[in-house]
């Protein structure tokens, strides 16, 4: 029983989910209440996780569950961004009539799944967490069920994700078959010699994970799902599953498969380069902002994988820093998107931004900052994210990866600039509403100031992240 104090956060959130569910069933019209309660429970959850984060490394439940610096940090940014996602979306789901009790509960259960994924140290535990989060996500994607695009995206995500889960599972069973264990550490010990079985296992597992992280060539679902889902769910998609998947990526590559880095390094480099280039090129022609951000997130995932490809602590840390800054940028971007509202209708095409700067100087300025940051122009936070990654990549003399990545940023800069052009240079259109809920405003303010002022004290995140050592 002494193990249970360490998984207090997970227990707490499971109990909350069940309570909310019961509460929602027995009390009518309690959607808003549950939404707020869920948000509060996320704050408590964050406090519980931070409370445990001083611990160095603890194995639980027969080594199948692991708390270490990596999982603590990832859980903190996961739950932290979850809070902001809930804050920004609260008004949106009311306006488009999605305010049902299932919505916050699904988000909580998906977060629970991700937490299990992040902490798992065993193939079976990992798969359990993965499926919990995926199941919640399928429903979330199609949550706006009267909308054709939303149902399509839910179905599409379900079919493709099920396929990738199948591949992942196949990879897991191969790995188990050849290394005789499902425990990550045990797999590492047992797989000392090269054999094709484990190699195939790695490939299948990587494919499944690359799907979750929407890296090329397993990205096909991302644009449709991003566009079709309700915007608040898109924001969720853009941030939280990426954090969890990246964390699992790190875990898989550097625990069970650590000794086989010559096998997977090429795969990661390829996925990384392909994502960077594809994300940059394919976004150019997009007209829908959500679709565009889907492609942009594909290329951003490419950069964070580039850090992983280095097989060095520096690289892992740079990836984690990258995803931390990436999530802030996405929060800021989507906060801006939530502000494009007129007569209870949300606008999400690039053309709708035309001439925004004349009537909404502050909103446009925030967008300007976010877009330049996404493009990686100094002195904004996005530049530092890329800088750390390339610092790690060049340390390992992977010049090709670095140069391709940097050239891809130039291509990507084009489409970010195009949005800025439309905001600042084009003739103005009708005004948008200016009254927004407090949570949205706070999120936008915090994230924009973070991006803008990051250069003043850039070592903050680095210092925290530098504790995460996998090798």
């Amino acid at each position, binding site marked *: 029983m002494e193990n249970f104090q360490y998984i207090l956060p997970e227990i707490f959130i499971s109990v909350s989910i069940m309570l909310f569910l019961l509460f929602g069933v027995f009390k009518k019209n309690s959607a808003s209440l549950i939404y707020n309660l869920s948000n509060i429970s996320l704050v408590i959850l964050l406090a519980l996780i931070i409370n445990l984060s001083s611990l160095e490394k603890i194995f639980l439940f027969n080594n199948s569950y692991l708390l270490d610096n990596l999982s603590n940090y990832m859980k903190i940014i996961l739950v932290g961004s979850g809070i902001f996602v809930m804050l920004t979306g609260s008004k949106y789901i009311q306006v488009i009539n999605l305010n049902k009790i299932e919505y916050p509960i699904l988000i909580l259960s998906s977060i629970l799944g991700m937490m299990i994924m992040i902490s798992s140290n065993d193939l079976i535990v990992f798969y359990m967490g993965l499926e919990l989060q995926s199941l919640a996500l399928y429903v979330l994607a199609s949550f706006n069920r009267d909308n054709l695009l939303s149902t399509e995206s839910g179905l599409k995500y379900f079919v493709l994700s099920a396929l990738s889960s199948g591949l992942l599972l196949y990879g897991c069973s191969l790995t188990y078959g050849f290394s005789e264990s499902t425990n990550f550490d045990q797999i590492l010990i047992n797989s000392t010699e090269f054999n094709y079985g484990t190699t195939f296992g790695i490939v299948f597992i990587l494919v499944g994970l690359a799907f979750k992280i929407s890296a090329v060539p397993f990205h096909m679902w991302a644009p449709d799902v991003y566009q079709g889902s309700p915007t608040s769910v898109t924001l969720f998609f853009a941030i939280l599953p990426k954090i969890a998947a990246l964390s699992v990526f790190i875990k898989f590559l550097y625990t069970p498969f650590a000794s086989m880095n010559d096998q997977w390094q090429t795969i990661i480099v390829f996925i990384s380069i392909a994502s960077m280039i594809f994300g940059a090129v394919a976004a150019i022609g997009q007209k829908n902002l959500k679709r565009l951000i889907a492609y942009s997130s594909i290329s951003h995932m490419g950069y964070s994988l580039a850090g992983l490809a280095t097989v060095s602590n520096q690289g892992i840390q740079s990836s984690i820093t990258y995803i931390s800054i990436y999530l802030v940028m996405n929060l800021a971007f989507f906060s801006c998107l939530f502000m494009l509202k007129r007569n209870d209708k949300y606008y999400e095409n690039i053309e709708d931004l035309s001439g925004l700067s004349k009537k909404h100087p502050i909103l446009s300025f925030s967008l300007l900052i976010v877009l330049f940051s996404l493009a990686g122009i100094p002195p904004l936070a996005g530049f530092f994210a890329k800088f750390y990654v390339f610092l790690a990549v*060049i340390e390992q003399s992977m010049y090709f990866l670095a140069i391709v990545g940097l050239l891809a940023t130039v291509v990507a800069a084009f489409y970010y600039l195009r949005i800025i052009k439309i905001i600042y240079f084009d003739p103005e259109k009708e005004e948008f509403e200016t009254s927004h809920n407090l949570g949205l405003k706070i999120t936008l303010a915090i994230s924009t100031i973070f991006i803008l002022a990051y250069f003043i004290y850039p070592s903050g995140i680095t210092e925290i992240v530098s504790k995460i050592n996998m090798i």
Partner: protein
Amino acid sequence: MNFPILSSLILLPTIGALFILFTKSSSGKYQSSKYVALFISLANFLLSLYLWYVFDKNSIDFQFVENREWLSGFINYKVGIDGISILFVILTTFITPICIISVNATIKNRLKDFLIAILIMETFMIGVFCSLDLVVFYLFFEAGLIPMFLIIGIWGGERRVYSAFKFFLYTLLGSVLMLVAIISIYWITGTTDVEKLYELGIKAEYQNLLWLAFFSSFAVKTPMWPVHTWLPDAHVEAPTVGSVLLASILLKMAGYGFIRFSIGLFPIASEYFTMLVYILSLIAIIYTSLVALMQEDMKKLIAYSSVAHMGFVTLGIFTMTQQGIEGSIFQMISHGLISAALFLSVGVVYERHHTRLINKYGGLVSIMPRYAIVFMVFTLGALGLPGTTGFIGEFLILMGAFEKNILVAMIASLGVILGAAYMLWLFKRVVFGKINNQELKSMKDLKTFEIITLSALVIPILFFGFYPEPLMNSIESSVENTLTMYNFDLINSLASKD
């Protein structure tokens, strides 16, 4: 010297910009914002003059150095100046108030945003010339793209979007390779601190590639042939003030970079690639001069002449002689003043007549005599007449070139003749001749603020043309030091080969 004078110089304009951001002004006029901006930029100018006054001109070390921990453990925020950079800092702080005064005429809408952009721009430009760490340098170097992109794009002419994109993407493309090089330097030597790098030196085997990466960035920014094509577009479409900033300061970042980084850090590679730079510079000088001859748009003509003048600068730097480098620095300062003045002059007539086409003008001398006089001074400065700053720069560069390579110098001298040709022809067509266009007759002569800005530029052009000593004095020991280090490194590398 505990007072962080350089950081104050860098940050003051940003503080001013923030101040403007939060002040409310009666809609449309923005008088108060303008005064705030002017006040801040003048204060900055005075601060930089004070800096020049207390600056020890005989020392070869970096002065007023500030070194603070920044990126935990491995990169420091380090700024400092020597005799070379101080001149560029003063040039920047001198040009900015002039830009802010001239804002009156050219910028009609969103004045407040424009002033903020200019002040932020000033921060970045001063930062570039002060930074003594490669990463800090890169940060300022690239950050300048954002305000400039907005200046061209929001307040520019008809094809502003195209030009703004071209400007941004060209420069960014050049710079990313420099970022790779900077990071590589960090891993090769363990530091990006420029002073330490001067001491440590970089191994010969890495130098060529690193030099090329830096070159790709500086060549775009200079701009050198064949990557100069963004410049005419950007100049033509930018508002007058934008062109002034672009021509007089932004282009100098690259020239400064060549001296500080290319020569300073990679002497062996610089020696190796000298011929390449010579050839590109000569093409720039001759080819763009010829192109300038055929231009019908005044701004475009001046833009091409800028490329030619910058060709002289790169040529002078890579002669690796005391005269050549001093001449290049002098030429950069002089070009900063003269091209700013020329663009302002074009702005004067453009604002009155709304066209930049040369053939729409003619005979301005009888309508606007004062304008004709100042414009003549600037024209003569641009073609390098003795008595103006333009002459001293070109003369020294050619002297340096003759010492190293007579053929190169001969060809470059042709550029001087061509320069005289296009500038005088421009002057003849605009100012002299009969008034063919009757609309011109209603044009008024210079207004007070135009007299202020233009005479503020005439004075240093003539003063330093006759008496270059103060400027020369300041750069002499630093250039000497740069060359000593350069030759020392070269000899060492030759010795190690034998």
